[in-house]
């Protein structure tokens, strides 16, 4: 469970997050939508402290993580993150990308880590790409490998930061399919996305952000079918 209380983030004078309060339950799939610069990605990156909040509190399973003395590496092990630009490690094969963290952080044996990695690669449809380097993968394959890498740490929560925004249109579907499969496995997921059709299909709840605030939230039916806020309406009329 993720609880965020009055979260703000400032970059110099720029107030990117202006006080976000939100609770994301276990096994819930939440899609965050909104215009560019609305603070969606910053909100997501604050959840695993890739950005340090200016003020406010973040609790993961009841434990406050943004205070002194908390071992953030322990918390991050429970949270996988998938980036817009994949951020695969280019000097390692797909298999090594997936096994490096289980081996070095969790001290899993190499054999066990590789066995798990092969299962994950099978799940994302890349079992034949285990021994190639990321430069030999297509965009969609890279992102699927990145999802497998995050899953290798057996996270309870997965954070997706615009996972399909850097992909050619014909590759978006394969990545969304993998994510959809994950939702059926009861994973808690927070997805920042511009794929409205996908959000509508998989989300339990949709958050609409604008100017650093969650302006409106509700089920996909409520947000897409009957938006109440003017800004939500105006945004959706432009993207749908």
């Amino acid at each position, binding site marked *: 469970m993720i609880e965020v209380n009055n979260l703000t983030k400032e970059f110099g004078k720029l107030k990117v997050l202006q006080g976000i309060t939100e609770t994301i339950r276990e096994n819930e799939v939440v899609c965050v939508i909104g215009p560019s610069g609305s603070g969606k990605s910053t909100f997501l990156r604050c959840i695993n402290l890739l950005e340090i909040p200016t003020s406010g509190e973040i609790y993961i399973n009841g434990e406050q993580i943004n205070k002194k003395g908390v071992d953030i590496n322990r918390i*991050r092990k429970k949270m996988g993150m998938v980036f817009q630009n994949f951020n695969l490690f280019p000097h390692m094969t797909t298999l090594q990308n997936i096994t*490096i963290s289980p081996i070095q952080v969790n001290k899993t044996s190499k054999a066990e880590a590789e066995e798990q990695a092969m299962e994950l690669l099978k799940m994302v449809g890349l079992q034949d790409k285990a021994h190639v380097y990321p430069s030999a993968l297509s965009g969609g394959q890279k992102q699927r490998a990145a999802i497998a890498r995050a899953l290798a740490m057996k996270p309870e929560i997965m954070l997706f930061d615009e996972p399909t925004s850097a992909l050619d249109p014909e590759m978006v579907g394969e990545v969304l399919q993998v994510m959809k499969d994950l939702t059926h496995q009861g994973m808690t997921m927070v997805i920042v996305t511009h794929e409205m059709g996908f959000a509508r299909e998989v989300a339990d709840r949709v958050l609409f952000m604008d100017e650093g605030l969650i302006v409106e939230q509700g089920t996909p039916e409520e947000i897409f079918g009957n938006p109440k806020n003017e800004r939500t309406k105006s945004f959706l009329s432009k993207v749908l």
Partner: protein
Amino acid sequence: MEIYLKGIAIAYSGALVTLQITIFAVIMGVIVGLFVALGKMSSIKLIRIIFSVYVELLRGTPMVVQALIIYYGLPMLLQDFGFNFRWESPVFASILVCGINSSAYVAEIIRGGLQAVDKGQMEAARSLGMKHSQAMRFIIIPQAFRIILPALGNEFITLLKETAVLSVITLTEVTRKSMLWVAATFEAWPAYLGTAFVYLSFTIPLSRLVAVMERRMAQSDRSK
């Protein structure tokens, strides 16, 4: 003609020493330079200042002066403090001088390389639960190393030429071999032509190698 070949042969008799000093000094420069680079990027201001001063001092003084300080100055200082220290041979002093000198330049090369690695790499590593030190070791440094390999090659070439100044602390490397021969025979022209030839015989292949590495780098960048 024979006298020219003799000049080259005399210079070549010092090549092993020159290469030895250069290789060990570069290894030392890379190891020390890595720590200096990390020190200059430290989050603690005092550490940053200390390592910045270290780099400034070494880059702001000629290596020949550094050699004189280490080889002649240091034993005197230590003797004043009651240690009976003197250099057994100029070889160790030479490696030390070149290694420390090189570390300042290598540190800047490494710092540039580390900063050239996409910052998403560090974020991805940290998001997987790695500590900062693990992310540096497994993810950032290996990638930075590839980026800086050509620059390290150039540093190797520079240092190889710079070792010529070690003749002032009596190291019998390429240049000093020639100088000694001139002192005995007064054949300055063939002697120093031979010296130049020997240096070129190392630096030209090395700079070709660096050029190949740079081309490879450019290719792997395109295929990213």
